[in-house]
């Protein structure tokens, strides 16, 4: 099993290696100082070895802190600074303790032990190095906040140079004596200075955070100074500088100090303006809230409320309200910090005020889409800003913002308001569009249901015997009509055939159609004569139908034994009958009244029934007004004559063929228009 190196593994390795290196170095130093004290000659390389160990110790901890701090996702600046401060505090306290301890044992035997001093010095050095390196990593994070590509390149160069400088000790040069050292130091200082100009993170602190940071950074700066002194000024001799041999350490110190100072000053000077930045952030957040689409189940109010609140806080308005124009007489009001009574008062004052200025370019014409600034003298509120809210090109409402100070609204504020209002308008428009789309969906669903109901009600097979052929056809329109046809076997040689049309369209027509079918199927069983059927059907429907609905019907009783046809027309289109003997077709002209029009006993007076005998080859064509009223693009109707002619010309065909011919001619006539009513046809041919 192969061990996969996780980040935690690297972290721990770095820590372990670093610690080991320090221990090794300390051991070496202590040994060296003992040897020195004892007068032993040590190899010249051992100084270098110590420095080498130190160099790698630096690198180990650079890696460690990099992994620990750099990789952490937290962008909580105060948190990071606090960490640095904490390390610094520990280091300072330790240094102070060591200092105290050293001075307390200065005159004792213990104090003369060379290796003790070296040991303590190494402890200090460890802690200070850790502090420097960790601070460096944190400062890196701050500088690289919102970095650009360019900045990153410059930083990497700087960091690389710094790491390379760890090994500068190999030259053995000292700052105070070597020009090269000084030049390199100068270059690195300048690089550090330039990079220190990146303080964008300061802007993102709020007021409280800024104060905290000032305190922490101040203390960190103090620590840095203190450590600098500890390292570079010999405890024995307060005046002279020790030899500065490490380019790395001294450059690091310089850079860190400069950045701390800069940060401190910048935070300090940003304190007065921090509220502006915070306000801008708030505006951006409010804008985002306005632009979020309203969820289902919520309503428009919320957008207007957010708009009002955002607008008021953006311009420090003391009060405000939004009037939303609805279909009702009074507009809907959403207000804040002002009562309804006061709203009326202020509106009256606005109407009377003479100091109104319209905010627009002087070239545009005045309209109600103007933003108006009003100055009121006698009110609590001295300045008023009126902004129209437009949705889909129409004024949907007005927002009134009030301020107790005169000239309370400046150009900046008005601009912000405009963006808020535009965004709110878009959100409201989206919300309304969504509502319409949902309505449409619901309507389409309804239509689909109506269609499937209608389809289910029409019979699959039509009853007949061998004395006649019967064929039914229906083509449903987009908007469901209410065509209906059906048959019923009344007896061995007796059949009822019905065709009907329900008034209206859509789901209600489908419902009425199912009621009609029920009534037909029940009443037909009673084998009633045509007149009684219609009277009973009328009574039954009178209770079911809506106030303005009616059903037209044609009812036929075919007796194949007696070869008779009994029929009655309840307001339906006149049936077409072709007589083979006369070789001509004509429409039955009997009186009738639609069902559900006269909802009382008087209906019986309007039922006319006819009887006739049919011959072989005679044809009965039942249809609905969808066919007779079908119009072409010139608004000409298909009409009755065309149907009549078609039947005359095609009378030799069987019912299926007749129907096909008629319908195809119908389509030809109408062209490519969409059907707006159903086409229904039932053809009966007698054998």
């Amino acid at each position: 099993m192969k061990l996969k190196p996780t980040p935690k593994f690297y972290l721990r390795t770095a820590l372990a290696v670093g610690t080991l290196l320090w221990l090794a170095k300390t051991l070496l130093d202590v040994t060296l100082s003992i040897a020195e004290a004892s007068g032993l000659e040590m190899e010249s390389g051992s100084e270098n070895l110590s420095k080498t160990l130190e160099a790698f110790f630096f690198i180990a901890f650079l890696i460690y802190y990099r992994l620990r701090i750099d990789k952490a996702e937290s962008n909580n600046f105060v948190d990071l600074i606090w960490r640095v401060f904490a390390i610094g505090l520990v280091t300072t306290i330790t240094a102070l303790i060591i200092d105290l301890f050293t001075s307390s044992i200065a005159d004792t035997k213990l104090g003369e032990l060379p290796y003790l001093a070296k040991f303590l010095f190494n402890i200090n050095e460890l802690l200070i190095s850790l502090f420097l390196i960790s601070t460096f990593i944190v400062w890196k994070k701050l500088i690289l906040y919102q970095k650009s590509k360019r900045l990153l390149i410059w930083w990497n160069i700087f960091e690389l140079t710094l790491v390379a400088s760890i090994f500068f000790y190999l030259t053995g040069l000292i700052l105070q004596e070597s020009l090269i050292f000084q030049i390199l130091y100068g270059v690195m200082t300048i690089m550090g200075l330039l990079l220190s100009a990146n303080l964008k993170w300061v802007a993102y602190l709020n007021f409280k955070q800024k104060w905290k940071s000032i305190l922490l950074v101040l203390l960190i700066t103090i620590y840095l100074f203190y450590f600098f002194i500890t390292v570079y000024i010999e405890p024995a001799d307060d005046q002279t500088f020790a030899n500065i041999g490490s380019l790395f350490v001294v450059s690091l110190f310089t850079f860190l100090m400069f950045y701390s100072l800069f940060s401190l000053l910048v935070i300090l000077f940003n304190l007065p303006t921090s509220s502006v930045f915070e306000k801008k952030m708030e505006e951006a957040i409010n804008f985002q809230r306005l632009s979020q689409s309203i969820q289902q189940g919520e309503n428009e109010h919320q957008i207007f409320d957010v708009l009002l609140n955002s607008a008021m806080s953006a311009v420090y308005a003391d009060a405000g309200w939004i009037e939303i124009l609805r279909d009702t007489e009074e507009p809907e009001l959403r207000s804040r910090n002002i009562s309804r009574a006061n709203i009326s008062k202020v509106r009256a004052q606005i109407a009377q005020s003479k100091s109104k200025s319209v905010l627009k370019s002087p070239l545009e014409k005045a309209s109600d889409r103007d933003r108006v600034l009003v100055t009121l003298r006698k009110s609590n509120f001295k300045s008023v800003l009126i902004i129209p809210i437009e949705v889909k090109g129409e004024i949907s409402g007005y927002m009134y913002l009030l301020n107790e100070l005169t000239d309370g609204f400046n150009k900046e504020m008005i601009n912000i308001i405009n963006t808020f209002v535009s965004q709110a308008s878009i959100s409201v428009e989206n919300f309304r569009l969504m509502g319409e789309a949902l309505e449409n969906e619901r309507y389409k669903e309804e239509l689909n249901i109506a269609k499937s109901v209608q389809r289910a009600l029409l019979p699959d097979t039509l009853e007949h015997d061998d004395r006649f052929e019967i064929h039914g056809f229906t083509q449903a329109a987009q908007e469901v009509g209410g065509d209906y046809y059906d048959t019923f076997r009344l007896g061995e040689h007796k059949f009822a055939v019905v065709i009907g049309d329900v008034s209206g369209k859509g789901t209600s027509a489908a419902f009425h159609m199912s009621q009609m079918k029920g009534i037909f199927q029940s009443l037909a069983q009673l084998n009633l004569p045509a007149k009684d059927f219609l009277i009973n059907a009328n009574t039954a429907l009178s209770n079911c139908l809506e106030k303005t609905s009616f059903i037209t019907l044609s009812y036929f009783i075919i007796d194949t034994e007696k070869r008779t046809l009994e029929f009655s027309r309840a307001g339906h289109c006149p049936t077409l009958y072709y007589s083979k003997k006369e070789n001509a077709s004509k429409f039955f002209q009997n009186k009738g009244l639609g069902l559900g029009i006269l909802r009382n006993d008087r209906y019986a007076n309007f039922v006319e029934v006819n009887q006739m005998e049919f011959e072989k080859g005679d044809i009965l064509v039942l249809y609905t007004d969808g066919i007779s009223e079908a119009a072409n693009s010139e608004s000409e109707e298909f009409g009755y004559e065309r149907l009549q002619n078609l039947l005359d010309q095609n009378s030799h065909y069987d019912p299926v063929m007749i129907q096909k011919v008629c319908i195809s001619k119908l389509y030809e006539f109408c062209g490519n228009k969409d059907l707006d009513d159903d086409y229904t046809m039932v053809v009966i041919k007698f054998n």
Partner: protein
Amino acid sequence: MIEVNQTTENNYLLITVEGEADASSSIELDKQIREAMDSDAKSILVDCTNLNYISSAGLGVFMSYIGEVNDKAITFIIFGLSEKVAKVFSILGLDQLLTIKNTKEDAQAEINGL
């Protein structure tokens, strides 16, 4: 679309119906006739000279007032129907329940003849 206007003339209320009486416009037609029925008019004339089309919805509106017209003994006369529209009324059988005349003069004569 439909346009319905009402005026009082002489001894009757004249309703002019123009355009198309379909499902969407039947609401307006219904409203106007309702208004006419609620007024004190004893005679109502409906001028359908410019009525181009009537659907079952429009027919339903007229039909729904038949009962009331009879109960309140109001003279309700429709005139000026085009051939096409008149045929629709007669197929349905409404011409047996509503008074339909050809011209305005005929309609006025009917009122005055009573």
